[in-house]
């Protein structure tokens, strides 16, 4: 008991110091889980995938450094070049058509006076469904011998189409499925953008006697363009990475007719456990996407400036 009073001042001075230290550093402690999470699940896989680009990691053996072998192999791979061309065509077709149709739907919906909410909900349904389930449904629809689509063609006297096994029609089928599922996204996003446009300009235009076409051409579209650029960019990024529908509907076939980049990475590397090459394709895809979209944004900026 006798020592207690002597200790009291020391304790009282140490406590504020500890508090100060805790106050100063607590933020790091609180940040630590997030940093660890980021390092483990974000940064480490990223660095590891870069390491794999320069490595061979095959079935039955460990990881060995191979320098630029994977990159060299990719550069001369005709299948990869074809997949790039095909993917660009697919992205241009889907994003372009979805933009056109989506814009029309959004403009039509803007004028809807009754049931607008129900229409929005109905429109959103396709994109709420999992792509894998949609793909299986379309596989049945497109079946050459028993599918309802060919049945309908029969009924109106048109020849059947090899939807999933023709050299061109298979890619067209994938585009159709994409349009069906993702046009609503563009329509709803565009509708939201339309509804956010300032009404004063329209009122002024009406007072000045502008017609519907002039309003659309000179007011709506120019005001909408920045939104559309962002919406199309989002859609195109997604279309670039399409995998589920290819996997289920065509398996990349017939031959390589529907082998898009993501599927190519899966088929040429992942499925056979050639992980170094898979990582190389993945990075090549990421770099390619970045380049394409930089060019896209630059082109848009030029148009805007002009």
């Amino acid at each position, binding site marked *: 008991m006798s020592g207690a009073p002597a200790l009291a001042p020391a304790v009282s001075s140490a406590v504020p110091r500890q508090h100060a230290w805790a106050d100063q550093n607590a933020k790091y402690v609180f940040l630590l889980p997030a940093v660890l999470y980021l390092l483990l699940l974000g940064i480490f896989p990223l660095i590891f995938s870069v390491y794999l680009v320069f490595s*061979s*990691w*095959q*079935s*039955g*053996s*460990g990881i060995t450094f191979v320098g630029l072998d994977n990159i060299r192999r990719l550069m001369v791979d005709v299948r990869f070049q074809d997949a790039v061309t095909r993917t660009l065509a697919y992205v241009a077709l889907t994003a372009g058509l979805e933009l056109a149709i989506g814009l029309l739907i959004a403009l039509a919906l803007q004028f809807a006076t009754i049931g607008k909410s129900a229409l929005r909900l109905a429109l959103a349904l396709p994109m709420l469904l999992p792509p894998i389930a949609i793909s299986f449904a379309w596989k049945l629809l497109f*079946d*050459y*011998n028993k599918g309802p689509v060919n049945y309908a063609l029969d009924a109106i006297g048109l020849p*059947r189409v*090899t939807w*999933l*096994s023709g*050299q061109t029609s298979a890619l067209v089928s994938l585009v159709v499925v994409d349009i069906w599922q993702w046009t609503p996204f563009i329509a709803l996003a565009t509708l939201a953008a339309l509804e956010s446009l300032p009404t004063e300009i329209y009122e002024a235009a009406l007072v000045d006697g502008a017609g519907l076409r002039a309003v659309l051409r000179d007011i709506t579209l120019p005001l909408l363009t920045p939104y559309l650029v962002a919406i199309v960019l989002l859609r195109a990024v997604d279309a670039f990475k399409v995998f589920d529908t290819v*996997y289920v509907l*065509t*398996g*990349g*076939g*017939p*031959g*390589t*007719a529907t082998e898009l980049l993501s599927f190519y990475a899966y*088929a040429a590397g*992942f*499925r*056979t*456990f*050639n992980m170094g090459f898979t990582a190389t394709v993945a990075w090549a895809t990421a770099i390619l996407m970045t380049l394409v979209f930089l060019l896209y944004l630059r082109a848009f900026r030029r148009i805007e400036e002009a």
Partner: protein
Amino acid sequence: MTRSGTNEERIAHITAEAKRKMISRRAVLKGGAGAGAAALVGGHRGFTAASVQAQEKPRFDGVTLKVFAPTGPTISGPIKFHAPQFQQEYGATVETVEVPNADLFTRAQQAAQSGGGDFDILLLANTWMPDFVNLNYAVPLQPFVDRDAENPLLAWDDIPEGIKRKDSWAGQIYTYIIDNDNQTMFYRKDILGDPKYQEAYKTATGKDLPNPPQTLTEFVDVARFFSPNGGGAGWSDQGEGYGFITCVLRGQQSYWYSYPWTAPYSVVPTDKAPAQGIYIFDPDMNPLINTEGYVRGLTEFVDVIKTAMRPGLDADRNAVEYDIIGGLALMSLDWGDTGPLSVSDQSVVKGKLGFSLSPGVTEYFDWQTKTWVTMPEGQIHRTPTHAYNGWSYYITSQAKNPDAAWEWIKWHGSPQISAVDVATPESGYQPWRTSHSTNLQPWLDAGWDENDAKAYIQTILDATNHPNAVIDPRIPGAARYQDTLELYTNRAIAGETTPQEAMDQCVKDFNAITDELGRDKQVKAYRAHLGM
């Protein structure tokens, strides 16, 4: 046993343990297994539950065995079906971890490379064996087999040499096949035996209608005759019938369906070759897929798809089975699953299907001399193909209790239990034991006619034990070669390239893979596969 140490150390420990227990186990078996062993000597007819119960039955209470298996009822279903009984008799719980078929190899490799997953047993393709052996992930089963050679559950003498050959690699047993994958012919014996069609065929071609076709040439002629543009059109009472059905979708095992077409023309009979079943590669790993023989087979395959198969080029593996049992296709060259399906509720062809070895050829291309060899008059060169080789059990070096894992494998593959699996339409396993042909009760219980069952089983076993049987190559990177061959086969089927161009390009890719993986290493592995 703990899971510490390298895979190599774990395998050494497991092997030593198995050998150590061999002596004591044999001493018990000598006394207890007399009845079972005697039964086996007599053609396995006397195998009974009592003889099994006479054996030492170890208990593994509290042990959980994790089995890595493909998704779906046909392959992993039998495991789930039998697991409760095993738990009752042996105490161990058997759990399946299911993975989609297309990703099976990658996921299994990930587990093998990382040691993750904690799988005790894998149920995988036999063709991938070297990729798991080389990682010291697949434990040699040889010590277990040696230990239990006289055990009636293992019934080693009941397993045909053709199966043992597939279970072995580089002189050791590494896998335990519970499904016999080989390709045979399924045909409508009622239609081919119908006098009306026999007469029409004779009138149209001047030849007798073969029942069944013996050569690929006959097969093509018959298939075309029974397609909508042929004289036998309208044979199906289920809709528009075609003479042939095969799988053509990429990623759906379509290249395996080309084996029965390319092998007969390109595989040299065993007595005239350095080893049995040299196919796809010569013993020095030089590809044989662009030889005249292989390309001729592939060309005929592509042609028959165009001329005698339902249009649309969208038939997958299920379509092959269901067009046959649905009465829409006359013939197929397929794995045996169609047999049990033909007695299922969905079948309209019960009792109407015939079973036979795949057709042969009257001339084949000898890759050694680069000449065509004509078979003597009346002789047909057949090369039954073992695509995939069969679903096989592997014990992993991660197994906590290898003895329990082996006990499950042995029990599940025992004559009594396996007899149920191979007969039922619910399973995708084909007969692989000799006793499957004598123990017919499970077949009768599953709804088979006795003679049909006998014909079906005998055909499968004949393909297994055939002197020219071709086993799917077991080499490191087999999945890469398979995927590449599938791509180019599919390009030929789709008409993107000619069969010759497709195979020439495939040869380049094959050689690139071989060089990348190390030619010497690959040659050594391939020769181990061939038993050279």
